[in-house]
């Protein structure tokens, strides 16, 4: 059984690769390459997999899961400029794809058995653009 917890945060970012010229960055990332940065209301959906506990009827204590996501991710990301304030985005372009990978890496070591198995991280950069990451090699 899959169960999903959704949290939200707001942050700014800029998509520019140091390996590319200004012109190449602007062609590749469009408006997102604006060096001053811009922001989004992000949403993260964390999906864990498990069987309902026969006593509690729950796969996971959702309050605990929410607290963990807030502690490991939201408190670090919320109202921050990702490139300047949240490693690894000082050296990794903070695309929605890379944010999803980073969220996975921040959560995975803390998801002990009581949280079920981490199944997917979905990151909404806007309501109309989101990515799903399942923890495999990229």
């Amino acid at each position, binding site marked *: 059984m899959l169960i999903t917890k959704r949290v939200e945060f707001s942050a700014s970012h800029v*998509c520019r*690769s140091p*390996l*590319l010229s200004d012109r190449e960055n602007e062609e*590749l*990332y*469009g408006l997102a390459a604006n060096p001053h940065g811009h922001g989004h209301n992000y949403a993260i959906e964390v999906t864990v997999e498990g069987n309902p506990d026969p006593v509690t009827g729950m796969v996971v204590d959702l309050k605990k899961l929410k607290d963990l996501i807030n502690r490991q991710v939201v408190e670090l990301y919320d109202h921050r400029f990702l490139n300047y304030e949240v490693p690894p985005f000082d050296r*990794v*372009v*903070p*695309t*929605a*794809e*890379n944010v*999803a*990978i980073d969220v996975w890496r921040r959560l995975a070591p803390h998801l002990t058995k009581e949280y079920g198995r981490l199944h997917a991280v979905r990151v909404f950069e806007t*309501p*109309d*653009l*989101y*990515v*799903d*990451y*399942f923890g*495999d090699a*990229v």
Partner: protein
Amino acid sequence: MIRVTRRYRFSASHRLHTAALSDEVNREIFGKCDNPFGHGHNYEIAVSARGPLDPLSGRVLNPAVLDRLVELQVLRPFDHRNLNEEIPEFRDDVPTTENLASEIFRRLQLNWKAAFPENGPELEKISIAETPRNIFEVSELHGQA
């Protein structure tokens, strides 16, 4: 592997009716949707692609390229159109949202390779909401395994 999904909207009218059946049977099967004057919906589609992360851009695909593909292949031909009258595929086939989903998938898949690099993202599925309560998903062409 990472999946990227992008949503788009268009509005169109249609009538669910097939010449293969009598008027009475059409009315029984399609109900209100058989109204001879047609009716419309605000459709919302979600296009999902999956692929490896491009190490240089940190992305699976360039959303601007997907936007252009969907704009040319779907939004421009379908938005503010009468599907039965203006989309050749629906002159004979009923523009149910199942058939519409398959047609959109077919158009995107047909033009996918020209838009995206080899070994890049693959079209995985599309979902289409005819209304917020009727949602259809296609991950392969109808009739193909």
